[in-house]
């Protein structure tokens, strides 16, 4: 049964090829079933394989070698799939959430043209993401890595008619490509120094040959981190994610919330040995995580476009995962990835339903009181928001975020400041989450809105809502080790976080975290339901307006990058369009022309002029002969 592993990535890619070759000729219903079916099948197969793992997770691994990709000298990577506990979690989330989103997009894209093209790209995306997650060497990981980057480009620019979407797609691809190049250079460095790119072998050799904190390890880890930052839209390469909302909503749900943006988290988790060998880089991860979660959270608080709020929220939540990775709580990061995938996908799909109902209206302040018009969407959106803001005990978000905060405090590499940043982030998260909820679903109904969308769209919402609550069960403490089920499951692959000293005030941390999330909810209630005028007033003040503009533009990173990189590059290339080196050769040609003209003038046709020339020549030669 384990040799069915190759089916998981193969099915979506097969779906892609079928849809690309025959897509436009198939009726819509068939395209939809093919697109969704393939992902569903991989979901089923991955669940079957998951059964084999059981809960014990004692380093059980399924590998399958497909074929020898390359063999040149000592570099001979194989196409082989490597499924262990970590990849299983990723595969399960990707395929299940992917399946639900495909189901949703059958309804969402019903009356859009380019239907088969959409499903083809979505299948290609799921396929490349699965290749990325199941890769057993860094080169095929890189193949999946670029594949998902490509699909995000294709899907963001799906409505290619509007060139703004094209610009957003190119911006996303180029910025992630910056990270990918750093990752590629990291790969070269690793191969040249350690002789292999097989992940497991690489880790053992790194551990054996590189002392902790050696310069080469730090550089390698830094390059891998740069790759992860590019793909997971962390500081400083996060400007592309808010613009990536130009794509259809299911795309944002699948790619820019659940799966692709967490590829960076997976990469760091997969190569955690390298990061433990480079402590400065690991603390850098934590700091980046903390900074990103604060900045993105604040920016999310002032956005007007429903999808941009969620985009900034994604950046902020991934900041939490990076924080967890930074403090060495590997499995906590994975746990938060799982819960985040569920509730963020739910929020995006809910937003998609709302947008569809308001016929493509994105501005939340033009919506209101949808509570009564769209009950199912409202309730599922409420669960999503609750889970996002980690309402205590009832939502899965709480368990994963609390675990991260606890470990941020108690872990060896953690510190009080990181914990404080986390808690502040939690407060802001619930603030903007509930603001979104109240503005969109409460208040007086401003405009007309259609009712709940069809079953194919509401079903995934309900399932995701259930999942974002049920996922909390994974946090049930294991009777034997007292550690949480998810941690136990992943213990085979990811080492447990080293706790600094035993006496962490468990209860105190729990209390503070829940106060933060409930406090955020209440504040949002106050600002946006009881005294909406007050919030407006606050923004009008001069200081308020400048802060608002700073936050709204995502801390002005776009403007900085335009002036620093995009502007000069465009200006330079436009000026140099005709290639100044060409001018050198044009100049040579021009000078020979001038020289030819001057020579031409000396031939005047007058006999006496020529005699004069002869005489002059005679004089000069005699002069030289006689005097020199």
């Amino acid at each position, binding site marked *: 049964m384990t040799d069915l592993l190759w089916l998981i990535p193969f099915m979506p890619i097969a779906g892609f090829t079928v849809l690309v070759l025959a897509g436009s000729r198939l009726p819509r219903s068939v395209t939809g079933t093919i697109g969704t079916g393939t992902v569903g099948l991989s979901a089923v197969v991955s669940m079957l394989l998951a059964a084999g793992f059981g809960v014990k997770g004692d380093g059980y691994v399924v590998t399958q070698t497909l074929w020898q990709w390359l063999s040149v000298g000592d570099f001979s990577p194989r196409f082989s799939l490597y499924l262990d506990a970590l990849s299983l979690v990723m595969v399960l989330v990707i395929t299940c959430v992917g399946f639900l989103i495909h189901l949703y997009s059958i309804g969402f894209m019903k009356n859009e043209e380019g239907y088969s093209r959409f499903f083809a790209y979505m299948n290609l995306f799921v396929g490349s993401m699965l290749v990325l997650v199941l890769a057993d060497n860094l080169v095929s990981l890189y193949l999946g890595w670029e594949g998902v980057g490509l699909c995000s480009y294709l899907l963001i620019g799906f409505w290619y008619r509007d060139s703004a979407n094209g610009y957003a797609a190119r911006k996303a691809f180029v910025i992630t490509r910056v990270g990918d190049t750093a990752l590629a250079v990291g790969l070269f460095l690793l191969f040249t120094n350690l002789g292999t790119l097989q992940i497991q072998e690489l880790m053992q050799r790194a551990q054996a040959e590189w002392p902790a904190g050696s310069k080469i390890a730090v550089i390698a880890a830094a390059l891998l981190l740069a790759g992860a930052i590019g793909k997971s839209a962390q500081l400083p390469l996060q400007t592309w994610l808010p613009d990536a909302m130009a794509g259809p909503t299911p795309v944002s749900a699948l790619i820019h919330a659940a799966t692709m943006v967490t590829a960076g988290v997976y990469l760091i988790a997969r190569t955690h040995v390298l990061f433990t060998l480079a402590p400065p880089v690991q603390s850098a991860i934590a700091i980046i995580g903390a900074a990103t979660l604060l900045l993105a959270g604040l920016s999310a608080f002032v956005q007007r476009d429903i999808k941009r709020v969620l985009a900034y929220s994604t950046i902020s939540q991934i900041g939490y995962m990076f924080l967890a990775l930074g403090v060495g709580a590997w499995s906590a990061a994975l746990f938060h990835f799982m819960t985040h995938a569920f509730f963020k996908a739910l929020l995006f799909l809910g937003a998609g339903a709302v947008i569809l109902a308001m016929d493509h209206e994105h501005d939340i302040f033009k919506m209101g009181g949808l509570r009564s018009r769209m009950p199912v969407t409202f309730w599922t959106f409420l669960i999503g928001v609750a889970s996002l803001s980690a309402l205590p005990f009832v939502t899965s978000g709480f368990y994963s975020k609390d675990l991260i905060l606890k470990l941020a405090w108690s872990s060896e590499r953690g510190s009080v400041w990181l914990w404080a940043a986390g808690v502040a982030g939690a407060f802001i998260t619930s603030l903007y989450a509930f603001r979104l909820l109240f503005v969109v679903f409460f208040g007086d109904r401003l405009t007309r809105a259609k009712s709940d969308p069809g079953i194919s769209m509401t079903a995934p919402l309900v399932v995701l809502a259930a999942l974002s609550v049920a996922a909390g069960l994974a946090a049930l403490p294991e009777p034997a080790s007292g550690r949480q089920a998810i941690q136990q499951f992943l213990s085979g692959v990811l080492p447990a976080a080293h706790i600094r000293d035993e006496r962490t005030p468990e209860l105190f941390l729990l209390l503070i975290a829940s106060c933060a999330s409930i406090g955020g909810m209440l504040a949002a209630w106050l600002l946006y339901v009881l005294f909406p005028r007050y919030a407006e007033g606050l923004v009008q003040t001069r200081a308020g307006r400048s802060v608002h503009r700073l936050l709204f533009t995502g801390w002005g990173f776009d403007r900085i990058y335009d002036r620093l990189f995009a502007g000069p590059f465009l200006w330079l290339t436009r000026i140099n369009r005709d290639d100044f080196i060409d001018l050198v050769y044009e100049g040579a040609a021009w000078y020979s022309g001038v020289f030819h003209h001057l020579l*031409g*003038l000396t*031939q*005047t*046709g*007058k*006999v*006496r002029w020529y*005699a*004069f020339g002869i*005489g002059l020549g005679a004089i000069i030669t005699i002069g030289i002969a006689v005097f020199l």
Partner: protein
Amino acid sequence: MAPVPIEGVLVLAAVLFTLGFAGVLMRRNIIFILMSIEIMLNAAGLAFVVAGSKWGQPDGQVMFIFILVMAGAEVSVGLALVLRLFHRFRSLDADAAGRMKG
């Protein structure tokens, strides 16, 4: 009579040669140019003869004879061309036939 000093004759030849050369450059009338060329040829011949007389060998004079022959042929053809030129351009201006230029 005293033997003739070589450089005296050579200087004479040089003077005659330069005068002929100046004549070629100065005058625009083709006849004058041809005449100046004759002067230059004669000066060259003089130099040959004086060289020959220094060693008492006839070679200098043989060379002079060749120069004479060449001068004769050259003048005959030259003047025939001058006639044609005159018919063609109606004037003896050397610069009139300046078509081949640039």
